[in-house]
Structures are given as structure tokens and as C-alpha cells.
């Protein structure tokens, strides 16, 4: 089989068209700047005698129109490529662009459905709906959703396994036909093979899943930690505030990369540091939840009894099982039965079970992953803390807080049910930005090979692997680099759109 071309059967028609669009755009852009420099203005509205407004378009306006249409035609050509990739049967006709586009079919369908529904019902969807009034926000949301959906549908999209090696395809360029692999494998390496002969495209897709599970979760924890500490510090103030702020500033003064290098090493994991840090950082959200529920439903014992206590107990079990690999139920049960059966085989069996059981509740997190997670939470939470504290200092002077104080609400109720809901706007915006920043941090860790499994398709480590032969084989690190770039860009644009729309209120 011949290697695939980039553009397949549509190339001869569409490539010149796209090139033309780029040329028109660049020419119009330069002309526009020149025109504005020599003092030509855009058309200004003219009020006619019959009170209608009309514009007399000048040369700069035509330049802007040309730029606009060039962008539209360019995007249209890309859509035709993707459609061509989906509709044409043979791989040769699809080309690499079409082939990749066709692999993303589930993502395209879901994106169209999400956009159609959201735009249809945007007036009823609050802030989320308003996002669809904002072009920047819509583009950002589209980029983010693209990667979220890619992560969800990863097994359907990927053409090969992320760690499947076909040794004959080491460093082969994009579109190389597969030979020597299993019979039913996808017949091409769409974006080429990496230094070990793995499919670059599939690794990028699998990496999306990995990045998109850790980054939002770590950001969420950082937010819970930051909020739990920032609310009392801002609201209660005094010594507590001074102390926590000092600690937060100290962590912020620590260069991130040095902290990562000190924390994310096998020796530190061996010494048990991540477990201690996780023990402290993960207990805060549970305390947060308990205070949240208790302060609100104190007067309704049945809710405390049937919702709050079971939920917190369950989470505590989960916490103990995850962080300490300890399950109090199993421990108590085995100790008790062992105590009753002292001296007989059941007692010994209970003893061995107690020494070597796996907790029923809780996830077994690998030490490497735990330390990466904990360090990212640790680095992010002081900034969140400062934002929350600033917001609280601002909001606590409002009238509704004074009203709550007058009617005798406790400080925790005011913090969690009066101040926090009113601080949500800036926090949501920062949450989006921070997921992007966390993604960058995780990529940095991967780039230095810290704490990640070398086989892992994580974008950062894939870029790191690819950079050794960068000048000779540029194709392996480029797809993960662009993936990371577009995702973080999407999150930033989304945050910008959200900020703009929430300020309009």
C-alpha cells in the first residue's frame, strides 16, 4: 500500500482555494493597516433625511469584508475536508486530514447536538446560555468540549492502543500503512509512529483522557482547600488570617519547579510524604461538606441524621480507604471475630486478613499519581485561597451579610450560605482558567519526566519523548503539543467569555 497523502482526493480542489484564502487575508490585513496609517477611516453612519441610517462603505470596509469572507471560506474548506473524510469510503480518497476527521465522528455529532440544544434553549440556561451570545466564549467552549468529548469517546476514536508497538513503524511519517501488526488493526498510522513505533494519533487521543481526568479533579480539590481556608481567614480575620496568609505566601514564594523536583521523587514517596500531605489536604473537603450541611440544616435533625451524617461517614471511609488504605469496618470486624475465636484457625485467618486486606471503599491510587495530584493541589490552593479571601473581604461589608448577622446566624452559615454563593461568578471564571493552568503544570511534570509512568500517553511526557529527535522527526511531539495548546486556549477563551457575560449583569 502507498502512504496516504495529507489531503486525499479533495486536495487538488481545496488546497489552492485555502491557499488563496490565506493570501487574500494577509493582503487585506496589510492593506487595512496601511490605510488606517494614512488616515483613511471606516465608514461612519450617515443619518438620511427620512431618519434612516446608512453607511457609505470605503476601502477599509471592503478590506475587512474580504478578511471576513476569507476566514469563512477557509473554515468552509476545512469542513468539506472533514465531511469528505466521513463520506468517502476509501482511505486514499480521505487522506490524512479526512481520515483524522472521520475518526472524530462521535465528537462532531455530539458537538453539533450540544450546540444545537444550547443555542435553542439559551434563554433558559442562565450564565451558561449567555455564553452563546459571545463569539469568544463559544469558540472557547467548543475547543474545551472537543477535548472533553474526545476523552469520553477515546476508545472509539483511537485507531490503535496507546502502548501497542509495531516495531517496523519507528519514526515513520504520517499516513504510513501498517504492516507487521495484528490482522484486524487499522491499516494506517494516521499521524505517524513515534520513536518506539507506537501510533502518535492514538496516544494523543488516549492522553486527552488522562489529562482531562487529573486536571479538573486536582483543580476541584485545590478549590475546596482554598475555599475552606479562605472563608474563615477572610471573614473571621485576626490571628487566623495572619497565620494562613503567611503560610500561603510562603508556598507562593516557593518556585513551582523546585517544589516539584523536591516532592515528586521516588525517595519522597518511599518516605511517605505524599500520604501525609494527602491526609491533610483531603480531610479539608470533608470538613467543608460537614460544616456546609450542618450550618444550614441544624434546625432540621432528620436531614442531619439521614443525609449529612451518612454522607460524611461514607466520605470519611472513602478518605481512610484512599489515603491510608485502612478500612475501619474490616479492621473492627476482623479484630472482633478474631478475639472471639482466639486459639482456633478462624482466629488466625482473621489475623492474616486484618494484616493484608484491601479496603472495600476507596481507590488504590498509585504512589506516583498521588504525589503528582497532591503537589498540583498544593501549588494551586494558595492562589485560590487569596482569591477567596479577597472576595470575602469585599462581600462581608454588604447589607445582606449584616442582615444575616442581625437575625443571629452563626459565622459558618454566613460564610457558606451567604458569602460563598455570592462569590460564585469570579470563582467559576477562575476555575476555568485554573484548569488550564493545572493542565500546563501537569504537562511540565510530564516534560521533566517527574512522577509519570514512561509508557503513559500523557501529553507532557509525549512531548518530552519526542523532543530528543525533534529536528529530524518533528511529527511525534507536534500533535500532543497542539492538543495541549488548543485545550488550554479553549479554557482561557471560555473563561474570558464567561467573565464578559457575567459582568454584563
Amino acid at each position, binding site marked *: 500500500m502507498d502512504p496516504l497523502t495529507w489531503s486525499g482526493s479533495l486536495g487538488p480542489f481545496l488546497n489552492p482555494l485555502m491557499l488563496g484564502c490565506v493570501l487574500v487575508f494577509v493582503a487585506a490585513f496589510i492593506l487595512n493597516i496601511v490605510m488606517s496609517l494614512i488616515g483613511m477611516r471606516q465608514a461612519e453612519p450617515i443619518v438620511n433625511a427620512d431618519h434612516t441610517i446608512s453607511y457609505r462603505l470605503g476601502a477599509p470596509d471592503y478590506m475587512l469584508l474580504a478578511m471576513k469572507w476569507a476566514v469563512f471560506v477557509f473554515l468552509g474548506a476545512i469542513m468539506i475536508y472533514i465531511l469528505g473524510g466521513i463520506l468517502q469510503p476509501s482511505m486514499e480518497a480521505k487522506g490524512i486530514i479526512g481520515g483524522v476527521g472521520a475518526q472524530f465522528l462521535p465528537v462532531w455529532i455530539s458537538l453539533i447536538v450540544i450546540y444545537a440544544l444550547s443555542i435553542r434553549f439559551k434563554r433558559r440556561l442562565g450564565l451558561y446560555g449567555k455564553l452563546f451570545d459571545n463569539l469568544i466564549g463559544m469558540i472557547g467552549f467548543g475547543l474545551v468540549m472537543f477535548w472533553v468529548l474526545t476523552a469520553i469517546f477515546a476508545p472509539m476514536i483511537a485507531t490503535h492502543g496507546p502502548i501497542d508497538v509495531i516495531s517496523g513503524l519507528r519514526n515513520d511519517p504520517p499516513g504510513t500503512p501498517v504492516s507487521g501488526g495484528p490482522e484486524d488493526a487499522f491499516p494506517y498510522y494516521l499521524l505517524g509512529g513515534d520513536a518506539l513505533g507506537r501510533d502518535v494519533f492514538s496516544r494523543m487521543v488516549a492522553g486527552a483522557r488522562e489529562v482531562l481526568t487529573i486536571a479538573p479533579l486536582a483543580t476541584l480539590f485545590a478549590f475546596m482547600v482554598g475555599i475552606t481556608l479562605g472563608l474563615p481567614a477572610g471573614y473571621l480575620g485576626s490571628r487566623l488570617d495572619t497565620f494562613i496568609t503567611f503560610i500561603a505566601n510562603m508556598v507562593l514564594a516557593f518556585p513551582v519547579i523546585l517544589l516539584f523536583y523536591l516532592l515528586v521523587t*521516588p525517595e*519522597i514517596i518511599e518516605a511517605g510524604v505524599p500520604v501525609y500531605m494527602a491526609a491533610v489536604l483531603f480531610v479539608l473537603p470533608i470538613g467543608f461538606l460537614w460544616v456546609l450541611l450542618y450550618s444550614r440544616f441544624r434546625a432540621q435533625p432528620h436531614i442531619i441524621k439521614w443525609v449529612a451524617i451518612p454522607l460524611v461517614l461514607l466520605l470519611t471511609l472513602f478518605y481512610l480507604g484512599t489515603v491510608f488504605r485502612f478500612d475501619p469496618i474490616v479492621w473492627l470486624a476482623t479484630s472482633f471475630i478474631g478475639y472471639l475465636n482466639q486459639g482456633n484457625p478462624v482466629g488466625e485467618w482473621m489475623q492474616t486478613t486484618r494484616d493484608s486486606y484491601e479496603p472495600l471503599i476507596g481507590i488504590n491510587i498509585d504512589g506516583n499519581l498521588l504525589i503528582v495530584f497532591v503537589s498540583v493541589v498544593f501549588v494551586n490552593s494558595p492562589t485560590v485561597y487569596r482569591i477567596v479571601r479577597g472576595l470575602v473581604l469585599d462581600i462581608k461589608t454588604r447589607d445582606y451579610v449584616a442582615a444575616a448577622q442581625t437575625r443571629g446566624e452563626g459565622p459558618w452559615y454566613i460564610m457558606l450560605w451567604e458569602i460563598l454563593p455570592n462569590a460564585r461568578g469570579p470563582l467559576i471564571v477562575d476555575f476555568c482558567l485554573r484548569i488550564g493552568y493545572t493542565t500546563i503544570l501537569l504537562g511540565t511534570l510530564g516534560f521533566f519526566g517527574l512522577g509519570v509512568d514512561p509508557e503513559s500517553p500523557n501529553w507532557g511526557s509525549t512531548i518530552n519523548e519526542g523532543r530528543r529527535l525533534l529536528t529530524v522527526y518533528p511529527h511525534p511531539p507536534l500533535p500532543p503539543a497542539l492538543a495541549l495548546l488548543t485545550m488550554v486556549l479553549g479554557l482561557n477563551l471560555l473563561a474570558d467569555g464567561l467573565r464578559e457575560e457575567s459582568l454584563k449583569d
Partner: protein
Amino acid sequence: MGLFILRRLGVMLLTALCLTFIVFFLTNLGPNLEKLAKTQGNNRMSDAEVVQWLENRGYTRPLVVRYGEWLGVAPGWTRVAADGTETGRCVDRGMTIETAPTFCGVLQGDLGFSTVSDNEVSAIVGGRLALTGWLMLIAFSVMVPAALIIGILAGMKEGSRTDRTLSTISIASTATPEYVSGVIFIILLASSTAGLSPWLAENGWIEGRTLFLGSSRSAMEDITFWNFTLPVLTIALYGMGYIARMTRASMAEVMTAQYIRTARLKGVSFRNIVLKHALRNALIAPFTVIMLQIPWLLTGVVIVETLFNYNGFGWTLVQAASNNDIELLLSISIVAVIVVLTTQLISDIGYVYLNPRIRIS
């Protein structure tokens, strides 16, 4: 003002002490010392031998005491072996316990000995810092003017087409971490098989095979446009967006102020309003951001120096950390912490100094 600076200095000193203690604690954890013993001594040492090796070198005493010794406030340990040879923290080759100084720590200017590069730490750190200084200097002199111009142009007329375009560009630049932009730059401009270079070389427009050099190793002796453009560009790009956005926000805020409106109504030209009235007030906030950007860029420097093989401070950090070179790592963290805290201090003082409303009250 004096009291303010004094208080800030006190907090800074306390922070520096806490941070160095944390670094000291983390680098001196049991498994780290064991690794040190095995890399320095013999890889196949038994546990008892490891303990003995550590004891001979004073590593088994309490952490706080050793931190005090390292800092130079506690007397260095001494030890007389069974055969009469005298060793100690401050006892260099050819010295005895009597002739050696009692204290030798950071306060005495003794940063210790790098186990990996087999050299005095102070000798290594100085040279490396100078190399990174050049990189930062050039990167800043590209980044700051570019960011300020973009920010001012965008903030001049909020919501205009220029504003939207430039804001999107600065968002894109903050979304591109160094390891992404560096890789893309190398592929586009410094690869002999891809990007622009083959095409330029074919047409005979450039002399060598690539437009820029993908490795800055040669820049350590001689900085040229060819070998230093890409690292500078990579650092500048990531930092630029943030400063530009802050400048834009500050500029946009100033442009809505009363005195600008008054000037506008008086008939002052737009150019004069921007240059004479708005600019000076709009540049206060970016100043603090620029100062705070220096520690932020430290991570970027580490990435760029690793990516482009430039053996500066960041590269040394990576080497020291991956080889568990304790004393070198400690010195690096002091330098890093001092840089961070000093820039914070300067930005605070500068903010107070530049802002007459705070300065006079």
C-alpha cells in the same frame, strides 16, 4: 515608609528561613540520604554500612542541629576516627580541628561542596546565574516593551476591533506554555527537515542549513542572533500575554477616568491624551506585574534551558535535583527564594512609591 520596609524585610527573612528549612528537611529525608550514600560510596553497601557511612559524615544527628550548622549558627561537627584522622564539617583537607573555623555555614559564606560536579557550590552557582541573567535580560528587553505596546494599544479603545484582536493574541500567548511554543519554534524555524528552513535554504536565502539554531549550547560562550533567538522568544512569548492583559486592564480603567474625559472635552488630541495623561497612571499596575513575573519566569527558564541545552541556573537546578546533590540544591533554593522575595519587596515598595495616593497618605 521606613517601618513598612523594615516589617517587610522581617517577614521576608522569616519566610526565607522557613522555606530553606523545608528544602533542608525534604532533601535530608532518610531515603534521600541512603541514595546519597549509595551514589557517593558504593552502590552495593549493606544497610549497616550505609548507616556507618552517614554517621562518619555527620548525617545521623538531629535535623535541627544540622540545619543550624548549615546556616552557620551552630558549631560544625568534628570527629576523630579510630586511627587519629580528624574530620569535621569545617575541616578541609590538610586542616586539623584546631586550625579549622568553628562555624561554617551560609552566614559565613560557605555554601558547601557539590558532590556531583566535585566543586565548591559558590563557584558553580555564580557562573550559572550569570548565564541565566543574560537570558532573562534579553528576554525581558524583548517581552516588556512588546507587552506594554500591545496592552496600551488594546486598552486605548476598549471593545474596538484592535482591542479584540490583541486581547485574543495575548490570551493565546498565555495559553502556550514554553514546552509547547519551544517545540513548535524548533520545528518551524530550526529543523533541517521541516518548517521554513529547508525552503529558505533551497532558495539560498540563508547561509546555514537552518534559520535558527535549535540548541543554545554555543550561546554560553558567544551570544549570537542565530543561537539565542529561539530561547529568548520562547520565554518572552509566555510571559508577554499576562503583562499585556494587565496593562490593557489598567489602561482601560484609566481611560474611563474623569480627568481623561475632561481632557477630551477640552479638546486635547487623542494622541496627547494617551501619551501625556493616561500612560503614566496606567503603567503603575503593570510595574508590579512585571516584577512579580520574574519568579513566575523561573519555571519557564528551567524548561527553556533544558529544551535548548543552555547550562544556566535552571539547568543546574534540574541536574542538582535529579542527582540529589543536597548542598547545591539548597544553595539553588536560597537563590530562588531570595529572587522571589526581593522581587516581591521591590514590587511592593515600587507600587507605594509610584502611586502618589498611597505615598502621601
